[in-house]
């Protein structure tokens, strides 16, 4: 664990750059993490990010399939929004823990 300054705020991040405490998150932090991944955030992105944060608060475990069935975005759309890392990048930008593939 390390402390990092993102968008002027000091936050705790894991070794691979995921926020340790999702309550330290704000939209500016999201934008800065996203631009580091080459993604410019739009309203469509934020709909997905807010959905991911809500589900995580409820304690749900997330998968690409479950996000694709959410009604917010389908799997193809999720890939378009977060190329190369539909769940990993979106989780990182949403300030939630790294998704675990349960194995």
């Amino acid at each position, binding site marked *: 664990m390390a402390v990092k300054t993102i968008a002027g705020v000091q936050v705790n991040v894991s070794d691979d750059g995921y926020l340790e405490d999702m309550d330290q998150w704000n939209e500016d932090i999201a934008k800065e993490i996203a631009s580091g991944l080459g993604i410019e955030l739009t309203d469509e992105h934020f709909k997905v990010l807010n959905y991911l944060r809500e589900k995580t608060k409820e304690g*749900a*475990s997330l*998968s*690409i*399939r*479950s996000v694709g*069935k959410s009604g917010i975005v389908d*799997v*193809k759309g*999720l*890939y378009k929004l977060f*190329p*190369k890392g*539909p769940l990993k990048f979106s989780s990182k930008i949403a300030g939630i823990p790294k998704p*675990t*593939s*349960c*194995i």
Partner: protein
Amino acid sequence: MKKLLILGAGTAGTMMLNKLYNELEREEWEITIVDQFKTHYYQPGFLFIPFGIYSKQDVIKPKYDFFPPGANVIFSPIDKIVGEENKVYLEGGKVLNYDFLIIATGTQTRPGETEGLKDKLWYKDIFDFYTVEGAMALHQRFKDFEGGDLVMCIPEVPYKCPVAPLEFVFLADAYFTGKGIRDKVNIKFVTLMSGVFTKPVATKVLGGIMEEKNIEVISDFYLSHIDNENKKIFSYDEREVSFDILTIVPVNMGSEMVARSGMGDDMNFVKTDKYTLQSEQFENIFVIGDAANFPTSKAGSVAHFAGEILFENILSAMEGRPLQAKFDGHANCYIETGFGKGALIDFNYDTEPLPGTFPLPGIGPFGLLKNTKMNHYGKVMFRWIYWHILLKGKELPIEADMSMAGKKRV
């Protein structure tokens, strides 16, 4: 009489039935188990059928052989659980009451979840080896296969026995070498994961074996659909892989009964406390095996280790004591690597598979994350252990909690 009800008579349910039948007072407890099927499958054996190592007869026995003589057995599909009323409804309307309930209804393959999977090439050029029918159809196909692209694809997690697809490609390498046509067969391992396994140390070692055996690994491939006409699989990010034979792990989901009962996550796995194995919704319901949503491998070894914890906790709950046993997510998997060798991994929620010796530190006889002949014998012996010890709920000389003894941090 108080009633204990077990739903599902697979590996986990049968094991719990035997353990609890031997422990609970017969005058006090009536024990009933429900399952819709009468045949018990030795599922680890399915993997060997395509290569002609096992036949169907090696992997099936009647479920009745493994039930204690005094248990009530009902063969019926289950409609739903109504936890608020302590009732289980069977299909057809019969109602069973319970004081305590164990859910062990497992996971099922759902080929229908993937577009183009259950289409015109199903069981002709596209197969699963998670059913005895699929494994046997693939065996027939292999007999006259003269070469081409053999693709193993993992389209979704979680799935039963995470190492089975690895073993499949290793055994295929040995099988086609034996037939003298290995140079004509391109073996490709396509996975939605970022590597051959989820944990870094094991990924490195197993990835190394892939390379040695000249098996191509295509990772981060999230399967969108299968094109039966052109024999290609496509990912959502529009990559494609062509196949002559496609072997796939169909999407795994829990029983529809779980969804009808309102107790599942979006894959129908029962929401379960990962330490106590108690349902998150009802204190008198416990969950074991593949049916549960806890983050560990869906495998018989996990059900076995979890069984010891569930046994302690359900007895505590029956006596009104707090639940003290905690499951650590322990899994232990033999990995067949072909040519009479095997590897072994041992891990839990917090510790990834590490190299070392097992179960005795420094002695073994099994080597962790090593490719040895002894590990292969372990796998071969396991079938006997499964039928005669594991299902009967007897003790094995391995602790339920994972041990760091004999493991090396790397």
